[in-house]
């Protein structure tokens, strides 16, 4: 009896067909998934755009000149419409504010010491211990500063009688 054998090429072809079939299936699944994702993104984008359009319309609606004018006249009574004579070519033409006779021409220095007299002595200590340092625009500083503030507060609490 002649044995029924599967020859290697047929086997390979069979395996290849299976592989290609699964690959095709996999790709088609991927495509469908991406398609879904794309549609979702488009939908989101359209929604966002529509939202922006609404906000734009609302912004211009709220900034109607007559509304602003009414609001200003109601809440900012000292703010007037700019008059032609308010405009000057030269900044030096702006008159210096007149000084009172006993007024010091130096700018007023606001001292934290004087204001802290009224507060608890413990808080005075806080202010003394904390060196005045400018707030730097660094992200890493945030945590440090917070810790520093925390430290001074806890230190202040301990000192309290």
């Amino acid at each position: 009896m002649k044995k029924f054998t599967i020859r290697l090429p047929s086997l390979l072809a069979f395996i290849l067909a299976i592989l290609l079939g699964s690959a095709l299936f996999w790709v088609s699944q991927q495509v469908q998934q991406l398609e879904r994702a794309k549609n979702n993104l488009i939908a989101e984008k359209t929604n966002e755009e529509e939202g922006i359009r609404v906000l734009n319309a609302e912004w211009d609606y709220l900034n109607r000149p007559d509304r602003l004018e009414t609001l200003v006249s109601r809440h900012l009574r000292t703010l007037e419409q700019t008059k032609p004579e308010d405009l000057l070519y030269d900044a030096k033409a702006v008159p210096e504010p007149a000084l009172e006779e006993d007024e010091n021409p130096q700018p007023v220095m606001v001292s934290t010491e004087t204001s802290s007299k009224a507060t608890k002595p413990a808080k005075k200590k806080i202010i003394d211990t904390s060196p005045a340092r400018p707030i730097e625009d660094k992200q890493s500083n945030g945590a440090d500063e917070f810790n520093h503030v925390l430290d001074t507060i806890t230190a202040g609490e301990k000192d309290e009688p």
Partner: protein
Amino acid sequence: MSRKSPFSNLSMRIMGEKSGTLTFARGRIVLVATLFLLFYVLIAGRLVDAILIEGYWRQHQEGSEQKKEAVLDDKSSGTLFGQDNEKAPRRADIVDRNGVLLATSLKTASLHADPKLILDAAETAKGLTHIFPDMTYGETLKKLQSDKRFVWIRRNLTPNEQKKILELGEPGLVFDYSYRRIYPQGSLSGHMVGYTDIDGKGLGGVERSFNKLLETSQDTLELTLDMRFQHVLRREVKKAMTDFNGIAGSGIIMDVRSGEVLAATSLPDFDPNGKIDDPSSSVMFNRNTSGVYELGSTFKIFTTAALLDRVHPSFNKRYDASSPIHEGNHIIHDYHPENRPLTIPEIFMVSSNIGTAHMAQDIGTEGLKKFFADLGLMSKPEFEIEEVGGPIIPRPWSNINTLTASYGHGIAVTPLQMVAAVSTVVNGGIKVKPILVRRTGESASQNSEKIQVVSKETSLKMRQLLRLVVASGTARKADVPGYMIGGKTGTAQKNVHGRYVADKRIAAFVGIFPVNDPQYAVFVMVDEPKPNKDSYGYATAGWVAVPATGRIISGIGPLIGMVPDKESEDISEPLRQFVSTSKGEH
């Protein structure tokens, strides 16, 4: 090697010389069976894919109905996929020159019902009347119980209303999403922008004239209007109208060089967001472009310009204004007669009808008509909206018409024509064509066909004369120190059914500034102003329109950063030698 085929259980074995052939045949059968098997496996696989995998996603997405709809919408708009064959669903925006929205389309929900699907009509009708108090129960119930499959309940719901309707939980109520036209500036955007009907079709102003473009293009349409100017103009014209109890008012601000309309207001006006009941009512009427008025003495600008440009007299030339002119049945007289010969600057300054009529005689009928035609006062102007009226011109034009037209009687034009003609006279003599849609880049330079209507010299002289009127003539109340305003007043009696009525007037003023190098022309008109206490019984242009223009200019000057220059020379100074009077009021 023992083979385990599906056929191995078969005990039949045929031996012999034919057995090879049989084995071969069996191999074929196995192959065919395998192929069939693969085929069924494939189908099974596809079924799993279609039912389980895709089905899962489909079910998953059904929850976000609106998202799906948005996708569909986006596809149908075609912009994303480059298919522009379908009609764009969203109407393009209209903005002013600074990008402020004048008209935009926002997606809103509308509610309709399918009465066949309504479960409990009575309960639903009750719920709906609760949400919309203006709907009556009986009518709503009738709608919901009708035989149709589609009835509109309410269009353009607010999100809040939509939420309440969803809470009713009635399956027969269906939302439909559509775009609604919104005018964020309300009545301020006015007649020039126009309005649309409920289906978004343009019915007035730019909305109407550019309807097709707005429907098909997604590009924003930019107008020449400036909402800041528009606000100042509207506020002041409204104030003048209210103060003097006028029946209507109108105002225009124009760039005298480009002809761009920066602001245009016609009062009373309407809110384009509201329901337009009657398109022919007085609030819908655009007085600036459709209204024709006899604008009185403001016409003396053109008569004087015609004289200076065509006859070339010296300013010293005198015209006898000592006695009224009798022409046929007509008598031409002055409101404040000087009763003496007047020089040209004096005639202009005191606004003498007699003197101007004499000037017109010098120019001649044909000369005056041609000059008016050159300025665009004799024909319907071209403009970018459709509500444009043509002038009313005396036909036939006899000699007396020349005399009366010289001071603005018997000839009626639209405010838009007036302000464009004045711009032409003062900008160096280049004809101005009013425009409303902003041109940028190439199209702007293409359009700059220059037609010289009056000479530069005449233009300069006219500016001097206009300045003289504001510096010491009938329009002193328009003066803003440092801004060098020029202008001319006009108070005309109204012609009602062919008769001039003494106490019904049109008070108009057209101003230009700065007069040394004009940039803007401002026109203000109040229809039928009545005297009030503060005006000492006057309701002439000098009391009504002139102060309003002064306020408008001092309002918009700082907006454009115009610094007042109090040292600059008054260009009307040289004319003083020809003037021996300083009164005049109207």
